[in-house]
């Protein structure tokens, strides 16, 4: 294989791109809609990881999958709890999130 293939059934294709750019502090131009989307996924994932009873028919699959990845990483959960906007996602948190979604293939 020429290069690492993306996980064919992962939901994180675009989120991965955005997180990688934040982690590397690259100057990728991210639209407001994608920023809003990532922040909402992060917020929902944090809420669900803290309390799975909040899952309902409208919860996005991305948020569910991210919740599954971050629920056991206490330090990351604490850092996410202090994020209140897309701009608040620091490079180290983006790095940890990237690591968590690369943990195992689904």
């Amino acid at each position, binding site marked *: 294989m020429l290069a690492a293939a993306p996980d064919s059934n992962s*939901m994180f294709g*675009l989120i991965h791109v955005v997180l990688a750019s934040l982690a590397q502090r690259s100057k990728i131009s991210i639209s407001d809609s994608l920023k809003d989307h990532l922040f909402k996924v992060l917020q929902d994932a944090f809420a669900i990881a803290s309390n799975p009873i909040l899952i309902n028919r409208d919860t996005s699959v991305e948020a569910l999958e991210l919740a599954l990845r971050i629920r056991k990483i206490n330090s990351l959960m604490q850092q996410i709890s202090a994020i209140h906007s897309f701009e608040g996602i620091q490079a180290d948190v983006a790095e940890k999130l990237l690591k968590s979604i690369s943990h195992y293939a*689904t």
Partner: protein
Amino acid sequence: MLLKSNLRLLLAQLDGLAETPYFSSDLDQYINELRAVLAELLSRLESCPPRVDPDLSQSIAHGVWRLIQFLTGSTAKQIPYEVVYAIERAANDWGTSKLLITTAIIQEANFYFHSIDRDFFNFIERELGIKINYQPVQIALPYIYRHKPLFCVPLFHEFGHFVDTANGIVIISLLNSSEAVGPDLPDVKPSSEIAKLSGQEREYWDSVVMMHRKEYFADLVSVAYVGEAMLGFLKEFIPNDKVSASHPSSVARFKLMTDFMDGTNNPIINLFQDALSHRGFPPLTRRFQPVAIDEIFGNVRPCQLNSDENVFGLFESGWKFLQGMVDNPSGLWKTLSEAEIERITNDLTEKSIRNRMIMEGWRATANP
């Protein structure tokens, strides 16, 4: 340069596909929507300065490329239309979005499913202003089975993976009842022992539990629709597979499927039923009705299917008929070889479903 070249090549491929009329107008529309995405992306990349980020474009291009992979079978007139029709009917049970079954024909002894998240399309709509109205269910099947509907029943297992992935069923099961809580899975380290692990070893067993739950759920969806046809096929396709990191053993899978069909209480089944309820879905139950085909198929005539439940039920009834005639041929079938029995039973199954498709199309035209 390469990204733009790739987009041009993919667009040319889709343009070629769009020139051929297909069995499905939905497929035509879907292809045109993908063409519009590529054309818009290319236009934004070619403007100076580019009006879209190259990294995001790369990600979208890869996503569309993967979608096109599953159009090759759908547009080569080689797809098992009848089985795809049955799966489309099954898809009606699972949500309101317009599902489109797309297939890839492969030269290997395998079936698989490839997901695409609805959010990918939502993102394309927000970023590029192009709405893709279909959610593809992308499944691959062996070339030699394309006209063997009774041997295509694993596509219902692959459809089960779609139901899971599109709704996060196994993920919900894990959030509600983690690897360290159980229920214990056959041939897998007990949950009480997984709870004591950490680091890479814990990650490994968490992953094994997730993969096995995914396979069990897909198995349950398949037997809910095609019953013993799935179990019977698997017993011949993978009679003795041992447990692996990605799949439970054949024995464990057969046991769970049998428990479901017999209505035997099983905590693994209960786990998924609970997860389904979080998404507002009813519990998985038998979704098919067997069809009385012994006399009709015995006279080498296709049967009439009066409901979707009959369409699903024909797979189990057809499978049982095939097994019965191979083991103990009778009547007109007495002089036929095993190869002929297999071919004719599959043909009759295919024709029975095709007749229903034609009748349905006829009614839709007569009563628009």
